[in-house]
């Protein structure tokens, strides 16, 4: 068994000139192919035992004196591989700005208010069918220094391992209908046919009456290939 290759028709290149920081930080030489050995077929195992009781509820895990401000949301979806097979017990780490577009990170200098009741970091683990879910508030847009009047679209950062280090994925989930998507060099660095995979869908069936808007975001990790040569050993 090996993992399917990273599909470079889906992932952004390491140098995308419109996103200025890539120019000095992306590798310039071609990646060197590697035959997947036990080193690539394994990875850290994190399951439900690493979760704290409020880790999957960002509307609660930063509360000090009341509820965080903003539009309450539920984000849920299924983690699968390329063959559609559910990926159970997968850790999903998340972090995001608050409703005003400000990160709690010490070096975020954006002149928007911190919310004393919102932290913005959390995690959840997919269930036996690969479903994950967490509550939060919709993150705000914020300016950044890439170019004149540059603004990041609303987004939530995701980090997943999957079954091995080969399936590692760090990505960002965007929201439907955001006019900033068409202007964002990070989103636009993604090959065009794959961009819509980064945009969640509003989902009335996930929406909880009188409580939170529901958004669906499915995540597809690299799949597996049978390797007949090795199976014969």
């Amino acid at each position, binding site marked *: 068994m090996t993992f399917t*290759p*990273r*599909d470079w028709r*889906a*992932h*952004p290149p*390491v140098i995308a000139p419109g*996103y200025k920081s890539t120019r*000095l*930080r*992306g*590798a310039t*030489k071609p*990646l*060197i*192919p*590697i*035959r997947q*050995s*036990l*080193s*690539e077929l*394994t*990875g*850290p*195992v*994190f399951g439900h035992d690493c979760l*704290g009781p409020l880790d999957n509820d960002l509307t609660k895990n930063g509360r000090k004196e009341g509820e965080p401000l903003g539009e309450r949301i539920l984000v849920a979806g299924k983690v*699968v*591989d*390329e*063959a559609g097979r559910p990926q159970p017990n997968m850790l999903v*780490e*998340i*972090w995001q700005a608050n409703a005003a577009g400000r990160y*709690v*990170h010490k*070096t975020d200098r954006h002149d928007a208010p911190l919310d004393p009741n919102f*932290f*913005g*970091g*959390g*995690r959840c683990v997919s269930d036996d069918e690969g479903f994950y879910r967490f509550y939060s508030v919709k993150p705000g847009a914020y300016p950044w220094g890439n170019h004149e009047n540059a603004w990041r679209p609303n987004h939530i*950062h995701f*980090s997943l391992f999957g*079954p091995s*280090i080969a399936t*590692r*994925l*760090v*990505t*960002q989930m965007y929201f439907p209908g955001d006019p900033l998507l068409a202007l964002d060099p*990070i989103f636009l*660095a*993604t090959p065009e046919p*794959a*961009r819509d*995979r980064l945009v969640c869908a509003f989902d009335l069936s996930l929406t909880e009456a009188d409580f939170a808007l529901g958004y669906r975001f499915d995540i*597809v*990790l690299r799949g597996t290939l049978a390797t007949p040569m090795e199976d014969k050993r």
Partner: protein
Amino acid sequence: MSKGQTPSQTVGPFFAYGLTPQQYGYPLAGITSSDLRTPEIAGELIRIEGRVFDGKGDVVGDAMIEIWQADPQGRYAHPADSRGGNVAFPNIAFRGFGRCGTGTDAENRFVFETLKPGAVDDDQAPHVNVIVFMRGLLSHLYTRIYFADEAANAGDPVLQSVPAERRDTLIAAADDSSGVVVYRFDIHMQGDKETVFFDV
């Protein structure tokens, strides 16, 4: 039915409170740390440290480095490694995974306290798998740390697959002047010393 892979996006500059909260002093328990040591140790304690340099030679202060390695007996703490999980073996608590941001050290180093891995199979020399993330990197990159004092490097198929003039970028030199053996492994994103990255 085939589904397309979800694209990668950059980890961005503000990952620390989500991914390395304890290291950076945020109020969220971490799932991991840069200290892989366990109470019972059968093997050699080592430190791995290094810095990340951009194409201008400037040190990167907002990178995140992850390492994944076998224990000193060459076993991964993972179900696919059938030799692991046996309570009769030493280092049964060794998880083999660590994560470190470069934003808390005065010199912007990443520093891992760990055990020197053993060889995972008959072909490969002992090594540590490394994943590199940072603002300005849209898709994470993989590399490997090999140890300069391992004779098995000469026969390692992965090292041999790398052009000879670039192999040194994967080999960490040992320095035992401080009492603990320190392997230094700098990562150069670009330039003459550009680190070899693998298409894992």
